[in-house]
């Protein structure tokens, strides 16, 4: 097995683990192909708080998925080596290892094993919980399922299998919902005119007004101002004769204009009759990643200086991105709900900010999306199946100094916006903040295959659904589901319009402030709560 090549020292005794807000623990450190473990032999009889069964034998102090490690730093002090481990859930801890060679070996093992390239080498392909079974079923939140829900109302739409075998658009699922009048040939033609083949498809059908949210990628207008009749017709089909629609472009007008140089562009007014274009400048890619890095840095600041904190928070611009994301999503929701107009959302690729906007708009509009099941299907439909490249975007979080490639915390921004909505409407969501925090982690490292790969096509190729367990199956186990349920939930059929005033948006403390260890409300945890917190913090690995 090639994993063993990376493990030169598989275990070291007398390693001291120090975590913030907890006493240091001495024990045996062990590196396996996917995990880092530390178990301590019980010499702690004085610790009367522990359960009797924990008093003798080994206690597992640490069980960490190596994929969850964002960065490793090593330092030597005499014959000891210290490794600082920074996790993707923003926790930071230290290991003091006797012996420099062992220390270096462990560190290099962690570095190599936490950055495995091949999907099939990842832990979900090895994870075999006894209590669960892999069931082959229609993926949750599929287009088929969604169409089934709306079919009786949406008589102007149909399910198309034009993308069977992922031949027309590699990042779309096999089934997509399109206007009834549009033939598969037209779709294929339109796909050629859209970046990555992402032709306009239905994202959401608002039952109250019968209006829709669609999404696509940018049209390949280019410098020559190319046109595509099929694409124009496709969008024309969406409108009733005299109706108007809105195209929400997640780029500034200037950026959209510039995109023409590289072959992209936007729908011109003259070619797309009755479609009104609105530009919203949303941050993406590298800038967004840097914003998160600055935010995490601000949260990590140890000077405890108020001015410094506020200026760093401002400088990170993270909350500005939250604000612009929410307000763009609300703009889309407003068009659908208030104006009664169909909306098409796209940026350039249509796999990042586009999905951010369409999914949040649905959360604002539709009470169904705010249920536990509804939220699951929303994420499946609008993120996983819609081809958000999780693998590329969620390789590193914010603590690594590795050179960034395609990382961008788009999904994290989505979860943050969900939290803001949750914060403003604490009764409207069936799920709790805990689920959002859990998802923030699952996207980066997990026992489950749910967030693996970039597209359905890849998942198909690697047989992810056949060979790994689903996070949703685990989550829907009643005992687990309970921890993700909001006890205050009151189903609210109304649209929930959030306030996007700066005064109303907050730092998501529950997620972004985890690096200080588990400190909630400045209270020390009782042993019970500590265990609970530990179980929660490592829920991803311990089963």
């Amino acid at each position, binding site marked *: 097995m090639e994993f063993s090549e990376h493990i030169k020292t598989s275990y070291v005794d007398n390693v001291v683990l120090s975590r913030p807000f907890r006493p240091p623990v001495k024990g045996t450190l062990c590196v396996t192909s996917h995990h880092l473990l530390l178990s301590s032999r019980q010499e702690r009889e004085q610790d009367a708080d522990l359960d009797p069964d924990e008093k003798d034998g080994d206690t597992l102090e640490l069980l960490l998925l190596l994929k969850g490690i964002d960065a490793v730093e090593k330092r030597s002090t005499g014959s000891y080596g210290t490794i600082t481990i920074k996790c993707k859930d923003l926790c930071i801890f230290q290991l003091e290892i006797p012996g420099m060679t062992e220390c270096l070996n462990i560190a290099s093992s962690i570095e190599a094993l936490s950055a495995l390239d091949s999907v099939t080498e990842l832990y979900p392909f090895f994870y075999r919980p006894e209590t669960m079974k892999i069931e082959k079923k229609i993926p949750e939140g599929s287009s088929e399922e969604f169409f089934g829900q709306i079919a009786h109302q949406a008589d102007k739409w149909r399910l198309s299998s034009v993308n069977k075998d992922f031949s027309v658009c590699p990042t779309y699922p096999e089934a997509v919902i399109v206007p009834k009048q549009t033939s598969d040939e037209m779709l294929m033609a339109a796909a050629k005119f859209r970046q990555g083949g992402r032709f306009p498809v239905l994202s959401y059908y608002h039952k109250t007004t019968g209006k829709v949210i669609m999404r696509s990628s940018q049209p390949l207008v280019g410098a020559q101002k190319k046109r595509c009749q099929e694409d124009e017709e496709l969008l024309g089909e969406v409108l009733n004769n005299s109706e108007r629609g809105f195209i929400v472009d997640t780029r500034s007008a200037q950026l959209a204009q510039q995109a023409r140089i590289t072959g992209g562009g936007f729908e011109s007014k003259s070619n797309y009759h009755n479609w*009104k274009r*609105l*530009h919203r400048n949303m941050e993406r890619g590298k800038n967004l990643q840097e914003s998160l890095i600055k935010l995490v840095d601000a949260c990590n600041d140890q000077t405890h200086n108020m001015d410094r904190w506020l200026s760093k928070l401002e400088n990170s611009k993270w909350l500005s991105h939250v604000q612009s994301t929410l307000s763009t999503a609300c703009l889309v929701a407003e068009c659908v709900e*208030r104006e009664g107009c169909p909306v098409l959302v796209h940026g350039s690729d249509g796999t990042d900010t586009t999905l951010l906007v369409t999914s949040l708009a649905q959360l604002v509009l539709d009470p169904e999306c705010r249920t536990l099941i509804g939220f699951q299907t929303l994420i499946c439909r609008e993120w996983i199946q819609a081809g958000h490249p999780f693998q590329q975007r969620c390789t590193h979080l914010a603590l690594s100094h590795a050179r960034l490639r395609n990382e961008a915390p788009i999904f994290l921004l989505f979860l943050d916006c969900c939290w803001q909505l949750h914060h403003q409407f*604490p009764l*409207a969501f069936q799920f709790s903040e805990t689920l959002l925090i859990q998802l923030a982690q699952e996207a980066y490292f997990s026992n489950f295959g749910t967030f693996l790969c970039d597209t359905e096509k890849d998942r198909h190729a690697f047989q992810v659904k056949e060979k790994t367990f689903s996070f949703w199956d685990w989550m829907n186990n009643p005992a687990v589901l309970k921890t993700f349920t909001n006890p205050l939930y009151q189903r609210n059929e*109304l649209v*929930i319009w959030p306030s996007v005033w700066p005064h109303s948006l907050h730092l998501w403390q529950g997620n972004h402030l985890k690096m200080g260890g588990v400190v909630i409300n400045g209270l020390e945890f009782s042993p019970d709560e500590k265990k609970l917190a530990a179980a929660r913090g490592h829920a991803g690995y311990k089963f």
Partner: protein
Amino acid sequence: MRYCSQEVLAERGRNVLLCTAGAAPARHWLDSGALAMEYIRTPKVENVRLIDRVSTRKAPLGTLYLTATHIIFVENASEARKETWVLYSQICTLEKQPTTATGCPLLIRCKNFQVILFIIPQEKDCHDVYISLIRLSRPEKYEELYCFSFNPKIDKEQREQAWNFLDLKAEYNRMGVPNSLWQLTTVNRDYGVCDTYPTEIYVPKSATPPIIVGSSKFRSRGRFPALSYYNQGNHASICRSSQPLSGFSARCLEDEQMLQAIMKANPGSEFMYVVDTRPKLNAMANRAAGKGYENEDNYSNIKFQFIGIENIHVMRNSLQKMLEVCELKSPSMGDFLWGLENSGWLKHIKAILDAGIFIAKAVAEEAISVLVHCSDGWDRTAQVCSVASLLLDPFYRTLKGFMVLIEKDWVSFGHKFTHRYNHLDGDPKEVSPVIDQFTECVWQLMEQFPCAFEYNERFLIHVHNHIYSCQYGNLMCNSQKEREEMRIRERTHSLWAYLWENRVDYMNPLYRPDHSQTQGVLRPVTTPYYFKFWRGMYNRFEKGMHPRQSAVDFLMAIREETQQLQEELEAQEEKIAKLEKVQMKNGKLLPKPKGRVKHFGPSTSDNSIANTPQDYVSGSVCTFPNESPLQQLDMENSLLILTKETLKCSDPDLSANSDQESGVADLSCRSPSGGDSLPSEDSVKDPDSDEATYVAA
């Protein structure tokens, strides 16, 4: 007759409001001879617009009335005749802005952070209102204050009883004094030693009157060290005073003995802390004026400590800057955070909390007594002592305990309410948000310890409101002596009894007095990111900014519901028992009633949490095209008017008030015109505002 009954005034006011002619009743109204009336140049202006900067709703048109105590704006359009009441005593600044095509704007900033913009069509009317308000909002004599004319329907006996609701003597007994170490001194019986102190003061047993008097002569304004909090568990105490008149070298034997006595009153301790809450530089500067701070060499066994809390002028400016941020028209996130940082407000809050934590730690963990002072010992000292008490003693985290705390550390020890909160037209340099900062410290702690406080945010806001409203006598005047001279207890009503009566509204449903985390000393974290901007206070009137659902209100409703069901159940069980008795007598047996007697939908009404979209369009990022239909959106058309019932439940602030139209009497308070509520506070009754609901279906 000076003390015109509020009822009568309100009744007359209503007559005026209902009468379209206006002139005649106004004339009649003037007969009441209320002091304020002579300053009113124009009692009524029509066709005034009220601008709400957050709401996207069209500015309502209405009529503006000036009464003896309030400005009242009554909307024309809505059937409900929505009213906005503003107490004159709440007015902070008035600004007449340049006339525009639509009229003459008059901006009113209130001390409770409400900002109101009226557009008055005629420049002359605007000027008249402006001149009237300038005089009305700046009373010159105590007699003009609202508390002397405010007269709720309470008989004399009740009123007097209300004043006995709190008893500081009982509070000191609760702490465990007097005892073998501490005694009550009568040295200040006639305010002879210190005119800003109360008459009843607790000092160490060994502090004889000559020592006290000697010490008082060595302290600014005679404010000698006196007991603020006594920690029964370990005998450590918090004492307070003003700065010593030490200059560069002066000493005072009695003062040194006084401190020695305080230390000795904590048997077993080897030293005590003297905490000067000022920045060191300020304290040094005071030495040049013959004041200053204790020299460690002269006092045996003291540890001296500076804690840099800035003075009232810095705090006033800081608040000013923060309020400018709150008022920004459409700030970007960056503007907001930059402005917040630049104001320094949260930094000052943190400094006060840090000081409180230092003292609480010394007392609870080190068992060391602390003497706290600043310059005069009535601003920063009051803040810090009360924060420390709150951290130390769970009692102050109860509703009654909080009232006691304000009475103890603020009212009785001569915090200058009238000067600081500008009750009378006075020196603007004396004004400063001292107690506001304390209130915010409490709120910040509530955010960190959601289960540790019996009271909720609304309580803090209402107390804050009444610090400025001048409606009740408790928080008037600058010292106890002054209050006695003004015969406050005889002539005004007590706030605490009123708040206590309405305590249902102020209870925190998450309060867990028995929980390990809420017992004993609170140990808050003071890393900067735990300090939040208090939108609920500084933007409390911008309803569009607040969360649209409140978990706390929901839990309170559930609790009330449960209680009702419980009572219902008991009543029914009683009935059943009676029935069974009767049946036994008759020798017959009837089947027992099945199922629940009555179904209360505990929360169905809460589904209607009302809400409208915001202006997502005018963001700084991109301007929306002018011809966009979104801007022409006629909100009113798509409104679904709620039933009174749902409205009542959907808006916590409304439910805190009575609903005049539906005639639903609420537990909390009567309508503003009833005179017993918080007129300027929840005076907006608004069934079709942005709070109304759009039902999707």
